[in-house]
Structure formats: C-alpha cells, structure tokens
C-alpha cells in the first residue's frame, strides 16, 4: 500500500465510495472510517524504502489476468485428463525482491500463475512447488520477478 498517510486515506475512502455505491449521505462516516484505518495502517506499517507504484501495477494487470487464466486452464486440463499429467516437485528460487510486501506479492502472484505455488521463503530463497518440475520453471519465475521489479518506484 502507498506510503504516505494521505494516499492511504484516499485509497480507503475510494473503497468506501465503491462499497456505498457513491451515496453521498454517508461520506462523513466513510471519511471517519477511512481516517481511522489509514492511521492504523500507517502506524503498523513496516515498509521502508522501495515500494510499488500504483500506476505501474495497473499496467501489469492485463498480463497478470491473462497468465492467471492460462494458470487456471492448465490446472483444469491436468485435473480433467484421465491420465492426469503431473510431475510435481520442489525448487528453491533465489529472490531479488526484498522481504515483506514485495516478496509476499510475488509469492501470491506466482501461486496464481501456471504450475507454480509458493510455500514461504528460506532466507532469500522462495520455496516453489511446481506441477511440472521438468518444464522451464526457473525462466518463468525470473520473468515474473522482472515484471514486478519494473513496477517499483524509487
């Protein structure tokens, strides 16, 4: 989430507007709730240093949805095949992104991509479970991390 309290407030207030479908009679409550939540969020935040730019993330969205569609089709195809083509296995991937929100975002994204599932990290290595360990796993992981890294604003 954004770093400055003002941005946090704006995002949470936008959430309120979407929930209340733009009704104007509740904006006071929405503003109060968003302010309280933004304060908590800023107080609890441990994120220092680099972070994702909102616009850059939005630019990644189409590709993300496309690959998660491929991921779903891939797993559906494997599950419904009578002979169930699976070659599961583990790989440890050396991750460049720093721990915290970024690595968790990468892990969550990878868990929706074709054939990969992240089971936490060991130091700087992500433990990745693959449905087909024989495939080009390392390349796919690297490409995903590169894309996310490009969304970082200094």
């Amino acid at each position: 989430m954004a770093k400055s309290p003002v941005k946090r407030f704006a995002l949470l207030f936008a959430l309120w507007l979407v929930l209340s479908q733009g009704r104007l009679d509740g904006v006071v409550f929405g503003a109060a709730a968003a302010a309280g939540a933004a304060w908590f969020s800023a107080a609890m935040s441990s994120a220092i240093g680099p972070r994702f730019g909102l616009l850059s993330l939005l630019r990644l969205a189409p590709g993300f949805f496309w690959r998660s569609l491929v991921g779903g089709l891939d797993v559906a195809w494997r599950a419904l095949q009578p002979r169930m083509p699976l070659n599961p296995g583990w790989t440890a991937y050396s991750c460049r992104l720093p721990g915290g929100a970024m690595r968790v975002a990468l892990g969550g994204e990878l868990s929706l991509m074709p054939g990969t599932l992240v089971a936490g990290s060991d130091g700087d290595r992500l433990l990745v479970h693959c449905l087909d360990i024989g495939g080009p796993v390392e390349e796919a992981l690297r490409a995903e991390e590169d894309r996310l890294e490009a969304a970082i604003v200094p």
Partner: protein
Amino acid sequence: MIADVITVTLISIGLFFFIAGTAGFIRFPDVHSRLHALTKADNLGLGFVVLGVVAQADSGWSVLKLLLVWLLALTAAATTAQLIARFALPPGERP
C-alpha cells in the same frame, strides 16, 4: 436478453472451473498439488461468475463493487495458499 445469454454463458464457464478445481482437489496426489487446483481454478471460476453478474449490473458502481469482491477474494486466496503450503511442509523442511 443479450445480457442474460452473456450471464448464463459466463457463469457456466465459471462453474466449469469450479468443477475442474474440485476434480483436481480430489484426484491430485499430495497437499501441494491439490492447493494448485483449488487456488488457480476456483479463482478463475469466481472471476467468471463475477463477470457474469457484472452483465446484469445496473450501474458503474455495482460493477466496481463486484470487481472489488473478486479482487479481495483473489488476494485472500493467493495469501492463504502460501500460508497453507508453508504449514503443510514436513517439519524438517520448514524454514
């Protein structure tokens, strides 16, 4: 009428993914493979159901609200998948 056809088609596609995810959950050999099936297929299923309902929405706000529901479910699923996957590691391998 056209909206209804779109809705029925999209929700049927969504149901297909739910069924495929459940088939994977039942058939796949180990916890982690099963998690793949549940996380990826069910999210796609929910996504198509949401898109199907979007075709019936009466305002832009409703569309945004429905997409928000999907986005939150997506975030929750991607996170819990990592948590369960980590917890299901054999104790020796758990970092």
